[in-house]
């Protein structure tokens, strides 16, 4: 550091950004990493230079057909990530070829002299904030990278998403490794949204990195870039599900509500008085019923606060029907509840065996009946085939209405079902891009890649 000179009070000279010239084309080369970079690529003549060499020896000259590859974040831009300033110092484009189609993505090298290197990747508007793993992940179901069905890293399991051959086709700026165009690596991604664990395997080494999904907007804010980030296309491998509530959580909330409803149901059932207020069995004969068949019952008292009244009808029907017109009438106020109930029961045998339809019982609940003296007016109508029949009428005061709990439960089921459906749709489109596409539903365009 302080070569040959005593350390004066000012301390050693501060390392500075170096401005050099490309030995090939003479364009300005800026070295921003204070000697940490291995290689630097000239932006003008596509020469890859040895950044460790004071003369910037040319290591590789590459060609690229298109000239419009440009980093979305220009080299030299500084941004804040996790509270630390990072400068963009390098940029490369890589691609993977799947079924003959190249899928390019971009990687940015970030640098801070105290914190070291960090990376950003961008594919179709999807970004990842990447660091090299310090703890080595372990792969399940395989020895080396590229063959596992899952990987474990700091206590979390990552599912294998895909393994591809990455090919570097464009580089710009500084790299902390000996970057070359044409360099190939087997890249295996394991996902646990919003994180992705990747292994890059060359014939020399395996490097593991961990990435966390970032939205274009976050990148634009961090680096104070003008305009808007490119729109993200489709669902990316480690893109977090847009559902604000997680699926498991909402089902747990549903379960909690269901338990609460059940407790309420039991509570109200226990509290309900279920007081028998009236019971009578009648015998109807067609011969005795001339014209007017209606009659009224004796008075009975409905006590307490306004509450339910349950009316149960039973009729000895067999392959017959009976219809009862009821009116529950308050003797003092004349207020009446009119309603009709049908009781019918049919049974028989056919080629499928015995069958039956309907019931001899019928139950109806009248809500919010005030206390007072009441009577029933009953008008039976009977199947013309029947000449005589027995039926009974039974009234119970203050029964719990359990049906509403069922309705409430069904209503509560709607949000978790919708969330689950959306979650399923999202995960389906995520995994459709992987090495493990979901099985296609018949009727949809079938193109499973596992077949070949």
């Amino acid at each position: 550091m302080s070569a040959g000179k005593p350390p004066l009070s000012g301390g050693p000279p501060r390392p500075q950004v170096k401005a050099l010239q490309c030995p090939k084309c003479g364009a300005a080369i800026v070295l921003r990493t204070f000697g940490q970079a291995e290689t630097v690529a000239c932006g003008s003549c596509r020469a890859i230079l040895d950044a460790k060499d004071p003369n910037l020896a040319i290591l590789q000259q590459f060609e690229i057909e298109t000239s419009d590859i440009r980093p979305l974040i220009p080299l030299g831009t500084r941004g804040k990530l996790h509270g630390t300033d990072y400068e963009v110092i390098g940029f490369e484009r890589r691609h993977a070829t799947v079924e003959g189609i190249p899928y390019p993505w971009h990687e940015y090298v970030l640098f801070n002299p105290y914190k070291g290197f960090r990376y950003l990747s961008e594919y179709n508007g999807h970004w990842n904030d990447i660091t090299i793993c310090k703890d080595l992940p372990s792969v399940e179901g395989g020895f080396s990278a590229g063959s596992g069905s899952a990987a474990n890293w700091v206590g979390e399991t990552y599912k294998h998403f895909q393994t591809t051959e990455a090919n570097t086709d464009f580089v710009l700026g500084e790299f902390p490794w000996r970057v070359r165009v044409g360099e190939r690596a087997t890249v295996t991604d394991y996902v646990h949204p919003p994180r992705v664990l990747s292994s890059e395997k060359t014939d020399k080494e395996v490097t593991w990195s961990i990435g966390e999904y970032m939205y274009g907007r976050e990148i634009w804010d961090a680096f104070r870039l003008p305009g808007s980030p490119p729109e993200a296309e489709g669902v990316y491998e480690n893109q977090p599900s847009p559902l604000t509530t997680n699926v498991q959580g909402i089902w747990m909330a549903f379960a909690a509500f269901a338990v609460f409803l059940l407790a309420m149901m039991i509570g109200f059932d226990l509290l309900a008085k279920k007081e028998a207020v009236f019971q009578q069995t009648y015998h109807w004969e067609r011969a005795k019923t001339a014209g007017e068949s209606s009659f009224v019952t004796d008075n009975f008292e409905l006590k307490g606060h306004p509450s339910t009244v349950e009316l149960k009808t039973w009729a000895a029907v067999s392959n017959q029907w009976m219809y009862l017109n009821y009116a529950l009438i308050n003797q003092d106020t004349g207020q009446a509840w009119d309603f009709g109930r049908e009781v019918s029961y049919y049974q028989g045998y056919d080629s499928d065996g015995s069958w039956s339809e309907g019931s001899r019982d019928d139950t109806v609940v009248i809500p919010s009946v005030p206390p007072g003296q009441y009577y029933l007016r009953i008008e039976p109508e009977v199947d013309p085939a029947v000449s005589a029949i027995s039926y009974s009428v039974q009234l119970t005061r203050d029964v719990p209405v359990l049906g509403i709990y069922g309705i409430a439960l069904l209503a509560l089921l709607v949000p978790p079902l919708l969330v689950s459906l959306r979650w399923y749709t999202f995960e389906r489109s995520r995994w459709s891009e992987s090495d493990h596409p979901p099985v296609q539903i018949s009727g949809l365009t079938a193109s499973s890649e596992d077949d070949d």
Partner: protein
Amino acid sequence: MTQPAANCPNCGARIVFKWSSSVQTVCEYCKSILVRTDADLKKVGRVADLPPDGSPIQLSTEGIYRNKSFVVVGRIVYEYDQGAWSEWHVMMNDGASAWLSEAQQEYAVSFSSTTPNLPAAAKVEIGHEFTWNGQRYTVSVITPAHYRGVQGELPFQYWDKSDVTFIDLRGETGRFATLDYSDPEPALYLGEFVEFEDLKLKNLRRFEGW
């Protein structure tokens, strides 16, 4: 602790030891490598200028590791095919000697281990497993390195080196081990990877523009 002081036998500059157990130091003025003998300092060589590096750490950088403060008193610089790395010799506030490895802004703190029966370098391959102090370690990389230079105080004599082999091993949850084959008898260092932030370093180097 009184800091032992002496004069450089080469240039006469005042030499102050920050760590009383230091065996070797480098005169900051004339770059002579000085080794302590019973009576005085003996010049054993001269350090070539170290290549410029981008390390944020320098001699007298202070930090904290496991609630103990430490100060950087020396270093050994090595080169390998991915660049250079530094083994910073640090003195813990309890007098212990430790190493802060720095390679491409990755940091690890390790301590010398007296474990006997260490394997010979030729017998170790990537993937081999060893258990030391109840921890299991897997050989992750074998690095042929080149000794580049020294600076400051070291706990042993270290100056006439050339090619040395290092074997790095990784354990679980950031544990790591290094087998150092600088000497005929291998040396083992056990430690862990640390985050730059967690070291709470002070008196760091300044970089222009940062």
